[in-house]
């Protein structure tokens, strides 16, 4: 399966890119995705961030289906 990942704000700076596509064999959950993300970008361990799946903030247990749009969101700053 493949997922499309978008990074925002300071997390895009840490990832060195605004988006990327991951292809993998196994089924993903949000929690599992978070683990893989921190493995790839260890500097994100120090940052607070939220994960949105198909534009919805999602808890770790949520499964990520095929072709999902994943967004990695730093703290909000609107207003």
């Amino acid at each position, binding site marked *: 399966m493949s997922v499309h990942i978008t990074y925002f704000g300071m997390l895009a700076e840490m990832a060195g890119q605004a988006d990327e596509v991951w292809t993998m064999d196994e089924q993903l959950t949000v929690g599992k995705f978070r683990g893989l993300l921190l493995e790839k970008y260890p500097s994100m361990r120090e940052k607070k961030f939220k994960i*949105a799946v198909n534009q919805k903030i999602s808890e770790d247990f949520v499964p990520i289906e095929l072709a999902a749009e994943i967004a990695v969101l730093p703290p909000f*700053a*609107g207003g």
Partner: protein
Amino acid sequence: MEKIHKPKKVFVQGPISPDFVSKSIASHQSKTTIGAHAIFLGQIRADQKDEGIVTGIEYSAYEEMAEKTFHAIREAAFAKFELTCLHIYHSLGIVPTGEISLFVFVSSPHRRAAFEASEFIVEEVKANVPIFGKELIGDKGEYVWKENG
């Protein structure tokens, strides 16, 4: 509320002008069931940071999700409070200090609903809309990422 409120454009490029606020007020004067308008304006402060003085904020957003969230906030406010009209505008791009980046405009027959809805909406926007901001510092391109408390 059975009425359906169409998604509205919230984001504007750059600062929100006082003139835009004035035109919004004027366009509600034909609605004679309105007795109270509550307006909230967020203005950029020239805060002193360790790195220097803030000269502006550069906003970006996860736009599709932000528009959906704004719409959900509007629907929640119409369901919770007796409102005649409700508009939210937020800047994208650079807003210099002293300029306005958030404009929440609530109209109701009565003041209580207007006050309560205004606060509700501002808190929801700050907590739940995926908007990101760089606090720009000095004139050498420095910045720090802003974070709502």
